[in-house]
């Protein structure tokens, strides 16, 4: 990393620190958790097969991973305007149609998060300059916008599936 970049980061951190101080009272209002899991088939005591989620200790190219983000309002104030942004992890490919999240509006980006749109409205230009709908495999980010307000003690869950490339 170059010295100039370090300077920029230092300045940004200083600015963020100042901002954080300004709204210190609200810090820690929401607890954000991200879990990665894979599904495995296990045979229960009754001999029936069950699908179970386990941590991705067995993950090879082709394995489908479920990423789940939970958010819980641990303060005594109601939170609003909740937006969760999750870049698709490097080394994985988003699985089409796999997002979930109650009471959320889900949008995607194919340009690293600069522009978001609903799946059908997300456009890309091909090498010839023709505009077309972006493929699920081209998604770089997912954004969930929580439709309501999150009152104290309430929580929500959003997530998606991606396949290890």
């Amino acid at each position, binding site marked *: 990393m170059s010295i100039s970049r370090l300077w920029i980061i230092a300045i940004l951190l200083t600015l*963020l620190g100042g*901002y*954080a101080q300004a*709204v210190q009272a*609200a*810090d*820690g*209002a*929401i*607890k*954000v*958790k*991200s*879990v*990665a899991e894979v599904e495995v088939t296990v045979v229960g005591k009754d001999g029936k097969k069950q699908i179970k989620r*386990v*941590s*991705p*200790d*067995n*993950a*090879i*190219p*082709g394995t489908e*991973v479920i*990423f789940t*983000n*939970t*958010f*819980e309002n*641990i*303060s005594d*104030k*109601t*939170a*609003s*305007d*909740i*937006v*969760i*942004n*999750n*870049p698709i*992890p*490097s*080394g*994985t490919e988003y699985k089409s149609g796999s997002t979930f999240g109650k009471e959320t509006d889900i949008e995607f980006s194919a340009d690293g998060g600069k522009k978001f749109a609903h799946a059908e409205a997300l456009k890309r230009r091909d090498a010839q300059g023709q505009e077309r709908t972006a493929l699920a495999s081209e998604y770089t980010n997912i954004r969930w916008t929580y439709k309501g307000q*999150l009152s104290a003690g309430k929580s929500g869950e*959003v997530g998606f599936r991606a396949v*290890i*490339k």
Partner: protein
Amino acid sequence: MKNYHANKGSPHKLIALLSCAALLGLVSQSAQAVGTASGTLISNSATLAYSVGGVAQTDIGSSLAGNTAGPGTATTFLVDNKVNLSVVGGGVTSMTPGQVGGVSTFVVTNLGNTVQDFSLALANNITGTVLGANTDNFNGTGLVAFVDTNANGILDVGELQYIDELAPGASVTVTVLSTVPVTQVNTDISIVNLLATALAGGGVGAQGAALVNTVANTAGVDVVFADTVAGTDDLVLSANHSDRTTYQVVSGTLMVAKTVTPICDPANGNVNPKQIPGAAVRYAITVANIGAGPATLTSLSDTLNAALLIDPTLNSGALPAANCVSGNVANSLSASGFGAVRGVGVGPGVLGVAADATTAGATSAGQVVTILYNTLASTSYGVVNPSLAAGDYVTVYFNVFVQ
């Protein structure tokens, strides 16, 4: 009889073809996606923005346990070692009985996501094994599999009998040698299988240790056998893959014929000649290869009846009848007394043209005629070539006078 000449030439051509095949193979393999390398850390972070009382708050990054302030910590896991490979055998290799070290090739590809070594095991398949249209009925000997670095078809000092450090998605050509017992005959079939087994990388020049499929998954890089397609001689999920190749015995089958035809007699010339004392008859000795493979001819000898005198000038039999005498120079077709010709088929019968006159390779001493095919030459015969291709013939002819 063995065909050394043809076998000296063919391996070079074969290797040239194989080199091209190997290059093509590598080019196509380079485009083959084999996935994220083992040991790669997959990281996921979500960032939450929110407001309280209409005032935007500082974003909160996620963590595995749950984060309440600041950028958080990425949730991560490691990509495991996916073990998968493919072995693809070549076509049919033609061998002559007794041929040593006949070359066949296989292509081994690392379909996993880790640099690995591969051990190579060759075995004869059991009698009755069918591959394509062929059924195994004998075992080759001296089986050896190796990476023929200099592509000379021979296991040289320093060439490895395992595959060293094969990158994910990369392929390597494995050379296989087999020797055919001299007792085998035309159309005999030997089917051989190559079993490759993925091993740990082990560093350059060192064969790595066996891989063990991790039973209990760990947070580290586990070994995951992912060879879900069985080869010809292996089981799925074994870190093995295999394929078979065919060695087919192709040998010459020779047919020898000797014909006799009256040429002339001193009374009738060449008009309905009779086999009276003083008459000339022509013997033609034809060797035809009616087998499937080439044969190298060495020598042939023929002892004539004591009542026959070899004509040293190969009398053409042309009129007048008075010219029908042994040693007549006016009607001579050959200063050596012999004619030789070769071509396709089982032989033309009796010829008699000056272009067939031999310059070497056919001699007589007393009643014994000797043909040495490795020096036999005439204008129509072409260059000296003791190799007789399948379907070809060689005819040597000469005249004798009935005494």
